[in-house]
């Protein structure tokens, strides 16, 4: 009987693995609908102080932790 609890059923392993794989396949744009606006607003704010060349937002998943990392690329010599 304890055998049943010891081994996790493979379908639930499949579900977890798939959810993570698909989330990273899709990219942030599809995960957060507000992403385009967020990008635009960040660019506006930073532009008040320095020139902005571009912005990149990535979602990172590592085990149980999730994060979005935001890279703002500045123009040179400013």
């Amino acid at each position, binding site marked *: 009987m304890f055998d049943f609890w010891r081994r996790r*059923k*493979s*379908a*639930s392993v*499949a*579900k977890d*693995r*798939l*959810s993570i*794989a*698909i989330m990273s*396949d*899709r990219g942030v744009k*599809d995960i957060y609908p507000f992403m385009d606006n967020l990008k635009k607003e960040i660019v506006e704010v930073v532009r008040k102080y320095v020139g902005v060349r571009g912005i990149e937002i990535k979602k990172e998943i590592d085990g149980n932790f999730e994060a979005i990392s935001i890279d703002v690329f500045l123009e040179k010599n400013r």
Partner: protein
Amino acid sequence: MGIVIAVISGKGGVGKTTAVANLGLGVAMNGKRCAVVDFDIGQRNLDMILGLENRVVYDIVQVMDGEASLKQALIKSKVNDNLRFLAASQSKDKRVLNSKKVQKLIKELKENFDYVILDSPAGIESGFEHTIEFADAAIIVVNPEVSSIRDADRAIGILDSKSQKVKDGGEVAKYLIINRIVPDMVQSGEMLKSDDILDILNIKLVGKVPEDNGVIDASNQGKPVILDKHSIAGQAYKRISARLCGKKIDMKDVEVTDTSILKKLVGIFR
């Protein structure tokens, strides 16, 4: 004006062509004029499943290039007068397709049929993109298995960005068929449940098709399994076809077999 449905999967070998043949015939059995079109240029297969391989004279590329008229190229089904079939080219390469030609062909098909069902090539390359480009709806076929579901999600992503309907500000209707379900494995937790697959892909379900040896037997003979009254897959395709024709048919839970209920009962008294 008819409705154009692209049948897609991402991964190959999940039962796309079988689905197209059976849904086409099923829709025709519901009294609708239906055309099934093989878009898998270079790998013609739908003709075999329909048992029409000996009747192919002109193919889709010849129609698009104006070497034959659509009327000349459409092949009438042996079993149902409402069903017509347009074959893929076997000799040519899928690079011969272009949006303009595809659009013209789809328009002509729409004018002549209630339902136009397109069999997409596997993968997410240009052949796939041309299949979904002018479709009003898509049916995504998956198996309850990780690689099929992941590839399907990629295909759905491309559908959502490349379809003309989406570019025009509209939306393509998307429906899922889960094919080759093994009820015993779902019951014992060794196969993904339909609900889990729907959660992950986040689209509407149009039907579940259980694993059935009759499907191979049917393709051996070139008689779609929907014609076999005793086949459980055939019955599933009948239900899906009726749903496509707007009939309200309850979703049958093919994942629960009579034997598995029995086993549970036996388990209680053990």
